[in-house]
Structures are given as C-alpha cells and as structure tokens.
C-alpha cells in the first residue's frame, strides 16, 4: 500500500471493487472519468458505465431514472458541477423524491490547485446541507473513502460524497469501522478539540503536534459525516475540551464550521473558531501552497486553537 492516496483514487477503486458485488451498481460521469477516477470502474464494467458528456444536469436526472428502476447509480463530476451547476436538479429530482442516488463529487475545495477559482468548489457542503434528507460524507483518507462508498451503497437514499484531488496519508487501518453519522476521535486531548473534515484532518493532526510542543493538549475529531452530524460526539468533545476549532477546505459559511456551531449552540455552547476559506474565491497555485495561502495549514489551525482557548 502506498503511504498516500487521493480520496478520489480510493473512490474509483471502491466502485470497481463493489461493482463486482452489486450487479445493480451503475456509474455515470460527465466527461471527467479520467479525473474523477470512475474510469477505473469503466474499465472493469464497461456495460454499466455511462458517459453523459458535458451535460451534468441531464446526468443527475438520468441517475434518478435509473434509481427508480432498481439501480444504484453513482453520478460523478467535479464538486463545482455536481453540487453547483446541478444544485436544482439535485434538490428537486433527487432530494424531493428522496431517490437512491449517490453523487460522487471529486476535486472539492482549493486543493484542485492550478485550475483555479472556477473549478475550486468551496460551497458544495453548504448547498447540499440545505436539502432535506441528504447525507453528506467527506472522507479523510483512502480507507475511509472506500468504506464510505460501501456505506452509501448499503444506505437507501441520497448521499453526497466529497472527494479530494490531492493525495493524503492514511489515518485508518483495516480494522476501522465507518458508520454514517458517526464522527471518530483520532487523538484525545483536553484543552481544545480540533474538529476537521476531509484533507484538513491531516492539517489538524499537524496542529496537534505543534500545540503539544507548547504544552497544549488538543484532541482531533474527524467529522467525516457532515449531515447528519454526530451531535453526541461533537457535544461530548466540546464539553471535555471547553473550546473548539473547526477545520475544513470549504467556505466558513454553511459548512462544517456552521454545522458544529449550530450543534453546540443547542447542546453545549463553548467558544468555536472556524478555519476555512474565509468568504473569498480560490486562486491558481500548487495545492500545498494554497493550503497555507488560505490559512488552512497546521500552523494556522494551531494559532486559532490558542485563540479559542483564550476565549474560554
């Protein structure tokens, strides 16, 4: 096993793996199979792969028709187009009738890199959260991405899966049990809880080390299911640490930060500071540089953590 893998890569491999188990699993793409990695499924099951061309809105509707006739469709594109362009198709054709459609959205957030702002979707979680009944999963690593695909197949109803372009390390082993709606505590701590999702889990773990060097004890919670959010774990960790920092590669408006604030306001209010894309558009650049440029890196999280503790 390579020591790093992009969650989009794990997604494509999982589709091919579970395609062999589920005869009714079908995959749709909108001319991005090489990038979204659904091409791996296409190679294994060419008869169950349908390229829809550069027409995402139609792709979502076709997926709905397939779901209503016994298939489990995964419709893939970049997050920008799957959740952005096709928002209203997802809302009215998938969400309202609660269809068994899975949306595999890759290239989420600013780590798309050089393609720049038009392709860096930092609004998809916010958009999808507003749709009643929509499940949103943003896996942290290759192991979790694979298990999230499996869970989405076994779950009956709409699921939005968010995958990244950039390779990330493994945080989980073969013994990891993923469950929709359950956050996982990756590292315990007592001064501040870093609640992270997707590629930000790696940065949060880095921040934990920086803080430890200064004698600050930080817990790291991987909130991979953003909807329904794990209210129990979020509240319990807030109670234990007394301060929270949310970390996401997404706008600070309407995403994980918002979901955590809403949860804590109603359960156990503590100071919460949000690390995320601060209400600005993305820009071109190497992914790693952009993580620092937008203040999503370990050092930025550590600074926010100290500020959050100061608010206690």
């Amino acid at each position, binding site marked *: 096993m390579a020591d790093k893998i992009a969650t989009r890569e794990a997604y494509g491999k999982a589709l091919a793996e579970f395609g062999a188990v589920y005869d009714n699993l079908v995959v749709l793409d909108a001319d991005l199979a090489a990038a979204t990695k659904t091409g791996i499924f296409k190679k294994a099951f060419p008869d169950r792969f*349908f390229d829809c061309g550069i027409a995402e809105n139609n792709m979502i509707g076709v997926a709905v028709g397939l779901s209503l*006739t016994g298939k489990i469709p995964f419709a893939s594109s970049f997050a920008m187009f799957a959740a952005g362009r096709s928002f209203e198709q997802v809302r009215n054709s998938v969400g309202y009738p609660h269809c068994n459609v899975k949306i595999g959205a890759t290239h989420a957030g600013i780590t798309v890199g050089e393609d720049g702002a038009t392709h860096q979707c930092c609004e998809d979680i916010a958009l999808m959260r507003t749709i009643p009944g929509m499940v949103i999963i943003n896996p942290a690593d290759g192991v979790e991405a694979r298990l999230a695909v499996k869970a989405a197949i076994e779950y009956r109803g709409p699921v939005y899966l968010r995958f990244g372009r950039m390779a990330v390390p493994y945080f989980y082993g073969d013994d990891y049990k993923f469950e929709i709606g359950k956050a996982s505590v990756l590292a315990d701590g007592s001064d501040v809880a870093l609640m992270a999702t997707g590629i930000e889990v790696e940065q949060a773990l880095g921040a934990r080390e920086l803080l430890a060097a200064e004698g600050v004890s930080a817990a790291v919670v991987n909130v991979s299911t953003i909807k329904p959010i794990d209210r129990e774990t979020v509240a319990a960790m807030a109670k234990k640490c007394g301060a929270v920092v949310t970390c996401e590669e997404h706008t600070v408006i309407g995403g994980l930060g918002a979901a955590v604030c809403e949860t804590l306001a109603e359960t156990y209010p503590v100071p919460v500071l949000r690390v995320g894309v601060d209400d600005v558009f993305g820009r071109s650049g190497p992914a790693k540089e952009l993580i620092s440029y937008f203040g999503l890196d370990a050092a930025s999280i550590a600074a926010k953590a100290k500020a959050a503790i100061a608010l206690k």
Partner: protein
Amino acid sequence: MDETRKRELEEQARKIRVGIIDAVYSASSGHPGGSLSIADLLTYLYFEKLRVDPKNPDDPDRDRLVLSKGHCAPGLYSALAHRGYFPVEDLKTFRKTTSYLQGHPDMKHTPGVDMSSGSLGQGTSVSCGMALSAKLDGKKYRVYAILGDGETEEGQVWEAAMFASHYHLSNLTWIVDLNGLQIDGPIAEVMNPAPHEDKFRAFGWHVVHADAHDFDSLEKAFAEVVADDRPGVIIQHSVKGKGVSFMENNVAWHGAAPNAEQYEVAMRDLGER
C-alpha cells in the same frame, strides 16, 4: 379505431376534464389550460396504451409516465383517479395543506405518479434513465414523458434528447404538447422554440405529428413511434383550455381558477349541466 371504443374514450376524456375543473375550482388555483390540452392524450395513455395496474402501482414491469410539465397535475390526477388509483372525490382536496394531491406531482404520496415533477426540463432526463434501465435489464416496459412546448426552451431538454439518441433509447417516447401558449404569451413571441420537428430530427429522433384531440390521430402516431428503432417524439397540436369555451386559446387560463359563475359555464360546456 372502432367507433364504439372512440365514443367510450371521448366520454372518459369528458369526465377527466370535469375532474380538472373540479380540482382547480376547489383549490381556487392551479393550471387548467395545459391540463385540458392534454386531457385526450392522458385518456388515450391511461385507458388504451399504458400497461399499468392501479391495484399494483409499483409493478417493476409497468410502463412509466413522467409528466415533465408537472404543473398540469390536475390532468394527471384526474386521469389517475378515473383509472382507479384513488377516489375521484379526492380531486377536490387538490392543493389543500393536508392532501396527498400536491400542486405539482409528488411520487412519494400519490399512487400512480412515477416521478415528482414540476421544475421544467427535469422529467426528460429522468425518463431517459428509466428507459436506459429497461434496456440494461432486457425488460419490455416503455417510458413516456409529456413536455410542454414552452418547456422545450429549457436547455436540459436538449441534453436529454442528445442522451436518448446516443444510447439508442428506442423504448422512449416523448409527447410535446404544442398548444402555442406559455405564461408570458404565445411561445413564438416569448422565446420561439420552433421548429420542433427539425430540432428533434437533428438530435436523431423519429418525429410524428398528431391532432391532440382526435383519438384516431393519436393511435396512429403512437403506433408509428413505437415501431421505430429511434427514440420517438409525438408533436401533438392542441388547443390550450380545450373543452371549456372561455378558456380555449386564452393564455389567461394557464394558471388561474374559475369563479362560481365561470365554473357553471365550464360545467355546461362539459355536458354536466
């Protein structure tokens, strides 16, 4: 078509029109014009063409119908009620807060509705997915979708048309209800989608014309598109508001309900008085 059968269908269509007016009048809102223009089409589909069973509305092998122009729900509901999916009396609960007969079709709560619709253009793609699924499974059911003529101004319709042709969906039939009117006025003036025939042909479809208010013409058109190995579209030339004198060809009745006096005139026009 046999003359006796034709008379039966005409009587059925009359009852369906009465149901449309009853529903819209009871709700004091809704879309009578486009519902009346497809009343004969819905009659032909539900009482002649579709292989469906009201006792088993979820039969996986049934023919599917997607009312892509979902605002014409009164037409669909009236046809479903008269076909036996639910009591005709319930049409009077249309658009009421606790009713299962929502303003636009809701498949989760209304028996016989194959897809929730109303946001124009979206039903076309869903019909493609259903037809593709039948092909994958080697099943014999057919998929139909009803589109408004104004609806063809939506880009998604043409994305779906391209898809249907690309994947050889010969089991798919669309009916475009060409009544010539949309909310803001005549389609030719608002945003002219004509010529439909040339556009669909260019997208690889088999195109047939029909008189929307003549069962012989509808029968012939359906026989022709079903026999072809391309996806087929029937352009049905209709009269918006057909059957109710003051609603015919009057855009004001796209989305308006009759008052008590107008209701009485409509009932007389439909032979109920």
